[in-house]
């Protein structure tokens, strides 16, 4: 299944579901990455990780390993 980790820079995707549990998942959702939210993949950090996303009107940095928890359409 498709996760945010697979999305390419410049793509806009919609979140289907957040998997996992605990503080990381809660944090991801608290920051606005919820079901149905639109996310634009802005860029990748110079050293390859983390990635910068544009969500709900602001810029958010997420590690690739955590991006894997975010299922997208």
């Amino acid at each position, binding site marked *: 299944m498709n996760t945010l980790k697979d999305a390419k820079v410049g793509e*806009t995707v919609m979140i289907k*579901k*957040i*998997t*996992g*549990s*605990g*503080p*990381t*998942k*809660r*944090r*991801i*959702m*608290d*920051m*606005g990455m*919820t*079901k*149905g*939210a*639109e996310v*634009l993949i*802005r*860029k*990748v*950090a*110079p*050293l*390859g*990780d*983390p990635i*910068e996303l*544009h969500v*709900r*009107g*602001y*810029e*958010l*940095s*997420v*590690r690739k*390993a*955590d991006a*894997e*928890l975010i299922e997208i359409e």
Partner: protein
Amino acid sequence: MEIKIALAGNPNCGKTTLFNDLTGSAQYVGNWPGVTVEKKDGRMKNHKDVVIQDLPGIYSLSPYTLEEVVTRNYLVNEKPDAIINIIDGTNIERNLYLTTQILELNIPVVIALNMMDLVRKNGDSIDIKKLSNQLGCKIVPISALKSEGGQELVAEAIDAAKNNRLAEPPHVFKGSVEHAIAHIEESIEHEVSRDNLRWYAVKLFERDEKVVEDLAFDDSLMRHIEMHIKDCEKEMDDDSESIITNQRYAYIQNVVDLSVVRKKARGALSISDKIDKIVTNRILALPIFAVIMFLVYYISVTTLGTVVTDWTNDTLFGAWIQPAVQHGLEAIGASGWLISLIVNGIIGGLAAPIGFAPQMALVFFFLSILEDCGYMARVAFIMDRIFRRFGLSGKSFIPFLISSGCGVPAIMASRTIENEKDRRMTMITTTFIPCGAKLPVIAVIAGFIMGGAWWAAPMMYFAGIILVIISCIILKKTRMFAGKPAPFVMELPQYHIPSGRGVLIHVWERVWAFLKKAGTILFLCCVVMWFLGSFGIHNGAFGLVDSENCFLSDIGNAIAWIFVPLGFGTWQAVASSLSGFVAKEGIVSTMGVLAGLGDVGGYTSSMHNAFAAFFPTSIAAVSFLFFNLFDSPCLAAISTMAKEMGSRKFFWFAILFQNVMSYCIALMVYQIGGLAIGTVAFGPATIVAFILLAGLIYLLFKPDRSKTAQLKVHEGAAA
């Protein structure tokens, strides 16, 4: 009668600027008890009966981070008279997420809609009346930076507090979720206060671990509640925590769609984004960062900082104050020892922390600017990949960098690290990076054993970095520092020009706190060290003595045996190390005094014989260097660490860890290195050294229990 108003909001929403605006300079800064979270409160300007309690910037009231727990405990248990919820108007959706939670607390809320100037600039429009109606509380548009709307906000907040203005909270949850929560409310009606009923019901629905722990309901009640939750989860096909979060944002989306009109298309580049095109650019990011850090370091430590510090030490104290006091005391016929105590001991001792202050102020000035303008978040973004390797995050980079100048501001800079375990780990390991005061020791030892090699200093920095990495890897695997790794999900706030006043208050706060605390302890210890170094019992009589007979050398002699396996079990070497306890520069000056050379500036070959008495072999000198570079830092840094650590247990652990580490490393260097070059004979100490080495390698490579557990979570999720 005193009114307490709490200030709550997201990080980067202008809370601090508003707080400074409301309280002027009447602030008190400390820590929340027992934790490393900063606590700030102050009295409102022009309304001395109003206390403003600043709360940590938080995104939510979840049970997972320290800042959130501290905040929710305060709001639920200490119940302020009103809350000013400050919201960033350019980032309204995410900011309102916290608002929906605050509105469940049954405390009067006034919303300060900040950054209105930017909202207008972007061409967006917010229908404040509509928004206010939907949320059920008064909204005051403000621009904290431009000081707009402050008066109205104050009036509304005080009015809300005085009249306990509570409106009906908005209907955030729908359908079966609202039903489930209502059921839970019914079930716990008699167990909790009316005020907190809603808050607890929602939290129980989310299975909030802290609330469950605090309420400690009996099993049958919990099972009943669990039943309601499970029914809802089944219907919504999702877990309860996600259900709540999704519904909150769905509600917010609705509200925002009705009251906010945005001019720019979603995802269009703002000015900040355009700046970031260059600053976090794949190719340019690292060079730009290197240049900025170099400039900060160069100005505040190498050039301007050293100039001011040297002036303070040499001119202000050395040429003006000390001689003046000396003459004054001599003139009134004070006895020799008293003059020595006051001039050398007390004033000389005080000169050390005061000498630090200008350098610290400069470092903090630049750091505050970089942090307030938003650049530090970019640094963490860029550096994260490297730091993740050893269990930290990009935010730890700054303290390590500052450490190469001075450990005191470095330890204080760790405050920006969100995760408490990472914060503490950074504080413990940051002084392994050699600071400016350790350079003289490196120079002298390098001169002694190899005629002054230029690569000695870089090599010791390199050794320091390696030691930091090794320590972090080892510590992260211990129970104390392991555990659920902190999520690195970080906002990259819009760049903005920092408020000059905010920066200056920041700097002053930190410098003053340092001067007060470090000054008192340092002062005391300098007096003690002076005493130990000047007095002794000679020929059966107590009094002022030569350096060989002072108490310090007695102590040096008494404990020298501990350092025999390290190769420098001479009382001179030990006494020099002891003086490093107060200030690392003291090591070299003590060495000079004990060798009869007086004040030692740098190394010259004529000193060789004098120091030979200290170190029987070259490898012993190297071991001495390693020990003194990596043991616990100077007293100023130690007292800073004590204050910032927030826990006695961690503080003493830190001291123990640093000293044990440096002892083991020096032992290995001497025994194994010495064996390799043929200077040191094989013996029981050598065996111990090899065992330690094996132990170290094991600790480095042993499987990380928590990491494998986390991997399983990811695998389970992906399956």
